[in-house]
C-alpha cells in the first residue's frame, strides 16, 4: 500500500468525522457526506497510462435549494505505463496522486426521486511519479521518483436517485486535470483523468 493511498484513507476518516460533527452542530439537514468507487482513465502528455480504481469521499453543504458547496478527497492509485524499451534501457512509470477538490454542485430535479447535477471547481494535488528502469541486464537496474504539489480543476455531471429521505445512489462522470506537475523540471506535465464512478450520498 503506497503512502498516498494511506493518506487518502486517512482523509476519508477525517471527512467522515467532520461530517458527523458538522451534522450535529448544524441547525437543519444541510450537510451530506458521499463516497464513490470508480475507474479513472489517466492521460499524461504522450504516454499511455493504464486506468486505476479510484475512491472519492466528500462533504456537501446545501446553500440554496439546488446549490451546494463541496469538498472531497480523491486521487490516482498506481496508474502505470507499459514497459517501454529504447536504446538506453526499458522503463515503466507509475503515478500516484492525492487530490483535494473544492467547488460547487448544482442540482436539476427531474422526478421526485431522481435528479441530475453538475459539479465543478478547483483542486489541489500532491502527486508522485516513480520510474523503474532496467538496462537489458548489462548494467544494474534501479528506481527514481519525484513529487510535486500544484493546482488544477475538475468538472463532472451525474445523476442522483433517492432511495429514502436521507440516502441516495450516485452515478457520475468526472474530469480532472492537474496542471504543471514537476513545474521546475525541463518538461512540466499536465495529468488528466476521466472517471466513471458510482456511490452513495447520506444526508446527516
Amino acid at each position, binding site marked *: 500500500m503506497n503512502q498516498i493511498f494511506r493518506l487518502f484513507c486517512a482523509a476519508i476518516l477525517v471527512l467522515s468525522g467532520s461530517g458527523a460533527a458538522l451534522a450535529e452542530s448544524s441547525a437543519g439537514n444541510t450537510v451530506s457526506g458521499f463516497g464513490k468507487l470508480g475507474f479513472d482513465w489517466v492521460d499524461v502528455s504522450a504516454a499511455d497510462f493504464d486506468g486505476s480504481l479510484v475512491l472519492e469521499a466528500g462533504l456537501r453543504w446545501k446553500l440554496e435549494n439546488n446549490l451546494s458547496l463541496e469538498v472531497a478527497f480523491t486521487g490516482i492509485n498506481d496508474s502505470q505505463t507499459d514497459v517501454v524499451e529504447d*536504446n*538506453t534501457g526499458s522503463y515503466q512509470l507509475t503515478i500516484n496522486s492525492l487530490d483535494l477538490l473544492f467547488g460547487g454542485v448544482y442540482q436539476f430535479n427531474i422526478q421526485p426521486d431522481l435528479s441530475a447535477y453538475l459539479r465543478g471547481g478547483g483542486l489541489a494535488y500532491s502527486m508522485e511519479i516513480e520510474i523503474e528502469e532496467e*538496462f*537489458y541486464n*548489462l*548494467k544494474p537496474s534501479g528506481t527514481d521518483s519525484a513529487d510535486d504539489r500544484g493546482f488544477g480543476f475538475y468538472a463532472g455531471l451525474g445523476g442522483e436517485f433517492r432511495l429514502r429521505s436521507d440516502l441516495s445512489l450516485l452515478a457520475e462522470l468526472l474530469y480532472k486535470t492537474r496542471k504543471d506537475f*514537476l513545474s521546475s*523540471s*525541463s518538461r512540466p506535465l499536465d495529468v488528466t483523468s476521466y472517471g466513471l464512478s458510482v456511490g452513495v450520498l447520506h444526508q446527516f
Partner: protein
Amino acid sequence: MLRRFVLVIASLVCASCYTGSNDSLREPVSQQGVSATIQANLPYGAMEAQVAASFYKDGRKQALVGGDIVVAYSDTELHAAILRSIENLGGDYIANIPVDDSEQGVEFSIEHDPVAAREDRWYPVDELLVDPGPGELVGYRFDVNFPSDIVLTSPLPSETYTDREQRILLNWNAETDSDQIRLTSVQTCFSGEHSVQWATSTIINSPDTGSHDIRVGSLIPSTTVVNAISDFFQQISVMIVSSVLEAYTFGLVSADDIDLGAYNLDYCTISLTVFREISNDLGAEMSGGYAIGSSSDTVTVRYEP
C-alpha cells in the same frame, strides 16, 4: 506489404555477380580487446554526412545502454549528433550530421550522458533519472577524415537498359592510387502491384582507375536475385545509400530468400552509388576494426525488359 517481397538470396550465386577485389582498408574485428568499425560518408553536393559505428569487445558487438552514447562532432564541435540504433541492443549506430567544412572531418566520441541519451523520452529526464554509471567503452575517441569528392560522369540518370547483356559504364574523377572505390547498388523491381528490392555492395577499384563497367544481368539476374549484404562492412554502405530506416524496414540488410523467377518484371530501377574510401587511424588502443572516411555519388538508371 513491400517487405514480403524483399529479395535476398544466398551469396553463392552472387559470386558470379561481381569480380570485386578484396577490401584493403578494413581490418577485421579482433577476438581480444576492443575493436571499432566506423564510417563517415559525405554524399556529393550534400551538406550533411552519414555516420555509422559499431564497437566490439573480445569479438562481440557491444550495445551502449544506461546513458552511454556515441556522439559525432563536425566543424570543430559546431555540430553534434547522437548516433542511434534502430534495433535496441543491435549495436549498430547511425546518424546524419551537418558538415559545413569537409576538410575538418568528423570526430566520434563514446560518452556517458544519461540525460542526452534519454532526450527522446516524453517525461522530464532531469527529474526522473536512473543512472547506473558509465560503461567501460566510455572515453574512446576517433577522428575520421573525408577523401576528395567523387563525381559520377556516367551513366546519366535518364538512361534505360532493355537487355540483361547490356553493360552499364560507370565513370568518375580518379584521384590518388590509395583510394578504394566501392559500388553499392539497390535494385527495385516492379511486377504488377508487387515490388521487390535488394542490394549489393562490393569493391570495384583498388587502386582507383576512374571507370568500371557492369552487366545489367549481374545486377538483375533472370532467375534468382542475390543480396550480397552479408556482413556489416557492406551493411553500412547499404544503410547509407538507402537511408537507415528503409534499409531495415525493407530487409535490405537481412537475409530472406525470394525467387525472382516467379515474377514477370515490368521494370526495375537500379540505384548505383560509388564510394571513394580512405582509411583513418583508430589509434593504438584499438585491437582491430577500421575507421573509413568516404565520399559518394549516386545515379539511378532503369531496366525495362
